């Protein structure tokens, strides 16, 4: 019997086993980003920025040049890099605490400058690394170690929808929200990530992919319950879809025809 490897580990990742918890969305997202970078053929000229958050270790896992700066400042660091090396592909990988809490100003301003960078924004509605405190995206009523009785909007305010927030800015770019809680969504997520990098390669400005991502540990759920939580609780509050796209109608058609479609190195025949 002859066989063919139809799914193999991308060269966009190093060989190091990832230290995330079982069922954590970070691992899936890492793989998608790495595959996209490999597939676009830019691995050797990509510079990635790891956040402070569980994925601080991203600098060990992505198989490209990496830098690890202060909590929340990814977009500023990315700006410094991209302006210096416009020939490189620059992405900043960030959690919700990193991007939408402490890093809010940097996020809004990088977007307003339409900085030609790509942001991978992992929304798991919690501070994973520090042990489960409220994130700016923690759902109303959701328990965390700093909202032990559930997030009360009167005290802690409302969860922030980052794509919706950034969309009104004049600056052109690409804003999209996807999820990785199940296989069908994973494929769409990859497509969005690929498009975001393509936007950068086309010099069309700021791109941000918000990704709903399970954190079983700090949601105090099993991996399977976490998938369900993402589907039933997260997505209804954080609707999936594109919030801004820099491509004109004709281009979108072209895209649909030629496809920046995802190829999962899958062969269905």
């Amino acid at each position, binding site marked *: 019997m002859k066989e063919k490897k139809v799914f193999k580990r991308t060269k966009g990742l190093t060989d190091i086993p990832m230290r995330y918890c079982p069922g954590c969305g970070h691992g899936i997202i890492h793989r998608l980003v790495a595959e996209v970078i490999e597939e676009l053929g830019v*691995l*050797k*000229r990509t*510079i990635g*920025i*790891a956040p402070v958050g569980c994925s*601080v270790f991203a*600098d*060990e896992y992505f*198989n*490209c*040049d*990496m*830098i*690890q*700066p*202060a909590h929340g*400042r990814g977009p*500023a*660091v*990315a*700006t*410094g*890099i*991209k*302006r*210096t*090396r416009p*020939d*490189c592909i620059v992405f900043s990988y960030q959690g919700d605490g990193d991007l939408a809490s402490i890093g809010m*100003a*940097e996020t*809004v*301003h990088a977007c307003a400058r339409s900085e030609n960078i790509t942001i991978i924004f992992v929304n798991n509605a919690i501070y994973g690394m520090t042990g489960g405190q409220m994130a700016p995206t923690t759902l109303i009523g959701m328990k965390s170690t700093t909202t032990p009785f559930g997030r009360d909007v009167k005290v802690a305010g409302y969860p922030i929808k980052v794509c919706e927030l950034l969309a009104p800015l004049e600056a052109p770019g690409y804003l999209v929200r996807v999820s990785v809680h199940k296989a069908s969504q994973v494929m769409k997520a990859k497509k969005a990530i690929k498009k975001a990098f393509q936007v950068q390669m086309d010099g069309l400005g700021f791109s941000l992919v918000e990704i709903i991502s399970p954190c079983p540990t700090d949601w105090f759920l099993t991996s399977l319950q976490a998938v369900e939580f993402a589907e039933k609780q997260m997505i209804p509050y954080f609707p999936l879809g594109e919030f801004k796209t820099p491509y004109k109608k004709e281009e979108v058609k072209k895209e649909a025809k030629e496809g920046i479609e995802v190829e999962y190195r899958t062969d269905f025949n």
Partner: protein
Amino acid sequence: MNEKILMKGNEALAEGAVRAGCRFFSGYPITPQNEIPEYMSWRLPEVGGTFIQAESEVSAINMLFGASACGIRVMTSSSGPGISLKQEGISYISGAELPIFYADIMRGGPGLGNIAPAQGDYFQATRGGGHGDYRVIVFAPNSVSEMGNFPKICYELADKYRVPTMVLADGLLGQMMEPIVYNFEPVDPKDLPEKDYTLGCAEGRERRVIRSYDLRPGYLEKNTLRLGEKFKKIEENEVRYEKINLEGADIVIVAFGTASRVCKSAIPLGKEDGIKIGLLRPITLWPFPMKVLNQIADKVENILVVEMNIGQMVEDVKLAVEGKAKVHFYGRPSGGIPTTEEIFEQVKKILKR
């Protein structure tokens, strides 16, 4: 080429950085250093460099982090409040061992304070206002000429040791005009040796990682100890100071920046009265001229420290003299600039003349 020009200190500093090869500046306005970003906003594009007005000082220092990681010479500047906001970033840059150059053009403080010249950020600059074990090389110019010529030395040391270097100057030095001659030919960044740790195109080499952390048990300790060795080396090799009139001095004044110039102008007053006033001007505040001061203390009974603050460098002076001489202090903080006469008054009081 290198003619004498009349320049504002801030502009001399900015131009000096550009001539020294700076090709990236990110900053945020604050008095009394606005001339620096303003100058850079047209000057850098002229030489193919990048100027960004960042949304904040926090963002500015992190843009520097990114740009420096790509290997080019970078700069930011601010004054007290903004420098405080940059401390986290400076600590990260120290941890990641990236070379950067920045300037603190000091004003009165704490808090919003005022925008008058002061030297109240000495502690912050020399002790690392940020967290953790690190040091920044601190240059204290006292003329527009030095404002213009120090950036080059700062870049060289920053590159050599992979540390942040800075210019600490009070607002008067930033705002005053004086003739300056640049004592070096403009540096073409292309002529600088390539660095083997910077990010960019990884074709034909291993991927590189720049970080300031190590979460493996025990590893960070080793690394921090290594940083300590590096700092020791800097302390041994990079001390700079100016000695004036020290031989046989009746009293030695220690002062930096604008204060040192006022003190220098007191020397002739002393001469008239038969008092020989010596002056030691630290040019690097860290590393501080410990040894030379210690030797001075062997020969002189009284040392007067003059600062435009309520007493900061005076601790380093005491540390240096190890009790071998009496250390006096005269300070005028938050916009008070001592006058020549006041200084001389102090001298006479100490010497009981």
